[in-house]
């Protein structure tokens, strides 16, 4: 009976404390909205890409895993494989110490074309629960998250035959099929949020 009284007390304590749903990017749920400026100062909102598949790539140019994928051209090749009219690729950097200049320098060094969105205060990264670099999200034309996780199934960069989860997810969405792997464990460095 002690238990019952304790439970009654707990119940009283809990009443009126609504459970708030985490505002995070969950597969099958609408993606959190955002507006961020890129390295050139141009603002990008998720809503303006409605009707297109959007790939979000959380990045940090200093992270060895990001470096590895850019040196191996994983990100560049994946992006080039998509129809640019149907797929938008946005790279997001939530590192607190980075600026438009670091992003522009990195872009020049690696020679890619997609915008690098600066999320210096980390608000957007946290709304997506982005925790690693790289951390990938694929959002469908209706703004629903369809994939969240790693770029591929090869954390250590050793496999010769890898599965590129982002590529398979986008291809599936474009052909109206079920995304075969909707989530995976992202691997890499932690996002260097302001704290």
């Amino acid at each position, binding site marked *: 009976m002690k238990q019952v009284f304790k439970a*009654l007390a707990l119940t009283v304590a809990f009443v009126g404390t609504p459970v708030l749903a985490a505002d995070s990017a969950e597969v099958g749920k609408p993606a959190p909205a955002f507006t961020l400026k890129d390295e050139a100062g141009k603002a990008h909102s998720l809503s303006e890409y409605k009707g297109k598949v959007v790939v979000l790539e959380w990045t940090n140019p*200093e992270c060895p895993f990001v470096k590895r994928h850019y040196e191996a051209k994983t990100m560049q090749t994946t992006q080039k494989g998509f129809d640019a009219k149907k797929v938008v690729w946005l790279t997001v950097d939530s590192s607190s110490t980075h600026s438009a200049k670091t992003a522009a320098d990195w872009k020049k060094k690696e020679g890619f074309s997609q915008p690098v969105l600066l999320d210096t205060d980390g608000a957007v990264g946290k709304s997506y629960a982005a925790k*690693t670099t790289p951390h990938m999200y694929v959002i469908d034309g209706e703004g629903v998250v369809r994939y969240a996780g790693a770029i591929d199934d090869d954390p250590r960069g050793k496999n010769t035959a890898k599965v590129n989860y982002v590529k398979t997810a986008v291809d599936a969405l474009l052909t109206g099929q079920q995304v075969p792997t909707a989530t995976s464990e992202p*691997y890499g460095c932690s996002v260097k*949020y302001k704290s």
Partner: protein
Amino acid sequence: MTHPWSKRSGSRLGGLGVAGVLLLATVAQAALPSTAVGSTAPDEGDPRLEGALLLDATQVKAGGDFRVGVRLKLDPEWHVYWKNPGDSGLATEVSWDAPGVQVGDLRWPFPSTFRTPDGFITTHGYHDEVLLFAPAHVSEQAQGTLTVSAAVDALACKVHCIPAQLVLSRTLPVGPETVTDAEFAPLFDASQAQVPAPVGGQGAPRVALALDGTTLTAGKPFTGTLTVTAADGKPFAGGVEGDFFVPGRIAGVDRVALKQKAPGTFALEGQASSVVPKGEPRLTGALRLGTRATGFTAVDVDTALAPVVADGAVAEAAPLKLPSMKDAVGKVKPAAAAPVAAESSMGLGLALLFAFLGGALLNLMPCVFPVLAIKAYGFARLVQEEKGKVVPHALAYAGGIVATMLLLAGAVLAVRAGGSSVGWGFQFQEPLFVAGVSAVVVAFALNLFGVYTLGADGTALAGKVDQSHGLLRSAGEGVLAVVLATPCSAPLLGTAVGFAFAAGAATVVAVFLALGLGLALPFCVLVLVPGLAKRLPKPGMWMERGKQFLGFALLGTTVWLVWVMGGLAGVDGMARLLAFLIAVGLGTWLYGQSQGLEGGRRGVTVALAVLVLVGSGAVALRFDEAQASLETRGAVASSHGGAQPWDEAAVSAALAAGQPVFVDFTADWCLTCKFNERTVLSRDDVRQAFLKHNVAFFVADWTRRDARITTKLAEHGRAGVPMYLVLSPGAPDAPEVLNELLTADSVIQAVQRAAECGSPLKGGSVVCARH
């Protein structure tokens, strides 16, 4: 090259007093061949991590065992990762190449937990230094020299992360004897002491999980209770500190955490991932018990969670259908709207009907019958003397029943919300409750004997008060009827209440309400049907005798209650309860004496009565639940001739060995269970059938709280005992659930079906499907 760690003195390996060992290791480093030591993770040329390949033997014999390990030393504030790195990072990987040696799985000491300052990112790993090792077995043919090589792939992080790869190699002579390395063996032992003991390992604590639901809903939080018992079966009494639980990587679950509620009891909170996994997730991780002061014991947690179901009815109907671009957002519905009850095979209407009939049937059960008899007696008096009050009394009695039922429903909901799983009759698992009910029963009996009277004072004022007192008494009898009824789980009741426990709050209340109305029905019928009442005999001396006789019937109930107490708290508990009941007798007798006195003397006598009750209660009502477990566990098993205490692992083992399994979920306070045991399970033909088919008989004793049993009952939609499961080795995942009221035929046939289905002699053509 100088390494910063050679200057470090203390260690943070965790309260094991290994500082001396570490000092030894620093010295021993010099003795290692250069191929066994390597530095890596260079940050602008300055390495952050140094690894060394260590062996705990300087010579091994063919066929002998030794240990191989990689010791990683890190710069201050740098860390490498555990097998589940957490939100980011990468698990440290060690691959072995050792011809002539079989190297086992890597042993991971209990890791530290690291958090970013804002708590957003949590990772698990090791700082300062760690020895990851594995058992190694030398082949019988080994001779000459063995070469052991390790390739280490680690990620070292502080703010930035640097991947590290090391290839380390050592040789080891094969000789006539295995010679322990006095320098390194203590390091291995120190590391071993921090490795969580495997589940169910010898001397390891036992871990049991009771989830609050039977399924997890994708994307939704879930809760449960994890209980830890020491290897000797006693509840784990110590505390925990720091990040004592590190979850494994669990497919289908985004997040799990434990909070200590009481020593050995932890509230589990988690969130199912938004995507339904293929298999049923298991709760895995490392749990570290103890404190710096008492020393630590770590144990591996690996226990089944529950299947993850899709979020809401829409997802259920078309789990794989990709919504079209247009209606995608609109179709995402909240899960809260989906009633759990819909998953049950039983409709709400049928459950209410069963509950109502079950309640009515309870009147005939030995627990409630005495109360009904008393009520009928009191009613006979009323009908003759105060016809106008009949209906109010009936309503008071029904009201008492319904109110108590609602209170019970509230208690059930509250306990459920508080994180515990409960079952029907759960209150009889609490010794104090049993003592309280016993006291009420004895006090009632003494009232019937005329030791004291309730309310009737003989003064002029009493005439007015009597009416309300009488009504109160009727209501009180209603309350008592419910309290006594709970353990008499009538046949229809189990299913109905089981249904209620799996359902939403409104359903729970409705089912309890139906139960109460059913229980109140027979008496109300007696009162409200006009002709029926007049048939009752006229009051007279027989009523006084009848009243006293019923007192004895009521006292009979205490025999059973005392016996229940024996199961809960052993022989000592029974003695304490009896002593308390005598004090209750003395107290009520004193109260009875006071009723004949006036003024101050009366006050003194009443005070004395209260003193006797409170005093004896304080002294006697201390029950040692742990004491009973050893006494009764053996008794239950022996009464079944060869029955074993229920254990999921033992059941699996019996099934794997091709034995059919019969599990008897029972409790001392469950009269239906006892009835079945006496009249069916102990019958000769039933026993013969068990012997013939080599049935493994398990007894799951729910007399005291047991989270594992509560969970198992819930799996089959039951909230209480009895429950009988027959498992076939041919279809171990599809147990047959027998009816609550057993018949010899039903048991024998079920056992035979289970045996035939599983018999390898009959080939694979036997149909093992269940209906």
